[in-house]
């Protein structure tokens, strides 16, 4: 980022809406703040239009608070509930089509490397399960095969929520949903395993029920993507609206699924990423 991107031109300080003045004086850019500091700094996301109790909304807040270098991060999203919130996010972000997010991110990352060879520019894909595992799976996997230096984050709410509750590849087997009137007939797609085999250097599954762990995983994924190769984080955030639980039950639902063993927190780090992270995190320790 150019230093001045967050500087209000002289003469306009007074007229700038308050959310921007706060972003300048108390935003996360250029500062060491994270999820533990939520509530003490101006977040990158303004008010969002997602449903009450939306776990995805919470996941998005946590992801944005976890970005290692928000002032040099460009996000690529896709059609779905999350894209409704992205208009309110204070980093450059792209919505192109439904499912083409990893292809857009591939072109974008290469363009930014050409234009800014001496700067870190993190390109992070954040899309829903339908966009990632169904309509966009081809482009998601191809970006991993090509070893694009991008991080892919799936917001797994287990359903096409924005279109009204249809079965997705990530819906649990047996679930009755729109377009699955007799219950889903096959299990959740094993995208973490696919990611590992497709060339991702770092793969993790997590939920917003463990914010600190989520932060660490998102940071590790983005840092690994800078230097080693593509990375993938799958964030379990079940949809209260379509699975019909109360807005305040979201985290309980996640923990219940964890107990049942139908959601597990996991982390895979390739040997190369392991060496890279050990060096990086060791150095952080010494500081």
């Amino acid at each position, binding site marked *: 980022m*150019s230093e*001045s*991107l*967050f*500087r*209000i*031109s*002289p*003469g*306009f300080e007074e*007229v*700038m*809406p308050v959310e*921007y003045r706060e972003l300048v004086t108390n935003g996360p850019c250029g500062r060491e703040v994270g999820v533990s500091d939520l509530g003490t700094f101006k977040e990158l996301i*303004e*008010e*969002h*239009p997602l449903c009450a109790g939306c776990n995805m909304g919470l996941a998005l807040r946590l992801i944005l608070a976890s970005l290692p270098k928000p002032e040099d991060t460009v996000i690529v999203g896709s059609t779905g509930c999350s894209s*409704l919130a992205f*208009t*309110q996010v204070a980093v450059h972000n792209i919505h192109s089509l439904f499912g083409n997010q990893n292809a857009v991110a591939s072109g974008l990352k290469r363009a930014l490397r050409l234009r800014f060879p001496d700067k870190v520019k993190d390109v992070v894909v954040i899309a829903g399960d339908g966009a990632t595992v169904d309509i966009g799976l081809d482009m998601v996997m191809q970006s991993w095969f090509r070893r694009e230096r991008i991080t892919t984050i799936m917001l797994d709410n287990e359903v096409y929520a924005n279109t009204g509750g249809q079965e997705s590849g990530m819906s649990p087997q047996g679930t009755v949903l729109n377009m699955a009137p007799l219950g889903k007939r096959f299990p959740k797609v094993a995208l973490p395993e696919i990611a590992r085999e497709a060339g991702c250097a770092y793969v993790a599954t997590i939920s917003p029920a463990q914010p600190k762990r989520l932060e660490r995983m998102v940071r590790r994924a983005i840092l690994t993507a800078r230097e080693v190769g593509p990375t993938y984080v799958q964030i379990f955030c079940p949809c209260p609206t379509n699975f019909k639980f109360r807005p305040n039950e979201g985290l309980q639902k996640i923990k219940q699924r964890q107990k049942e063993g139908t959601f597990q927190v996991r982390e895979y780090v390739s040997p190369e990423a392991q060496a890279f992270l050990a060096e990086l995190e060791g150095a952080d320790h010494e500081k």
Partner: protein
Amino acid sequence: MTASEYRVLPGPEGYLPPAAACMGVMLPEPGEALVEGKIVPEEDALQKIAEKLLAARNPVFFPGPLVLWAWREGVAEKAKAVVELVEAAGARIIPMPDYRPKYPMINPAVEINPNHPNLTIWHNRIDVGVFVGVHCHYANVALKIIRGGTDCYTIALCGEMGHEDAMITLRDVDAAKLRRLTEVVKTRAQARPARAAGAHERR
């Protein structure tokens, strides 16, 4: 009406007015400007802008992100020139800090948005609105909506090639051209002291 006779005038023009470019209005060449759809020498447009600003009941400048944020060298100088022009014209500032469809809604008293600029114009009863530092695409989106639904007289001070959908547009506007416009406004204001003083009092 044939295409070439189309005039870009304050609205409300109708349910969905056309883009002026599709009605045959062409952007000005360097040294020229557009006034109500007609190509004129730039100097004439400066005079017309000054006249409109000084005669306005409630002139408001809508600075956009290109000038609100000191993101690039030269912006701070341009911003200063905008502020001086606003003061000379006895106008107010309502910024367009970004282009997002804002959730849940904008506060029309303090901001303007290209997706529904009419809300801010109606709320503040703005009779002359000046766009400056707005990316051309979003300025054009907004200018048509304003012409469609409001009677606001729009002026675009464009850093690139101008806007057919504004009633008056300058092109290649930089700090120097803004300062020149400020001079014209000041000169005209001195010639009509009552009007200018009145405008200042209102603030």
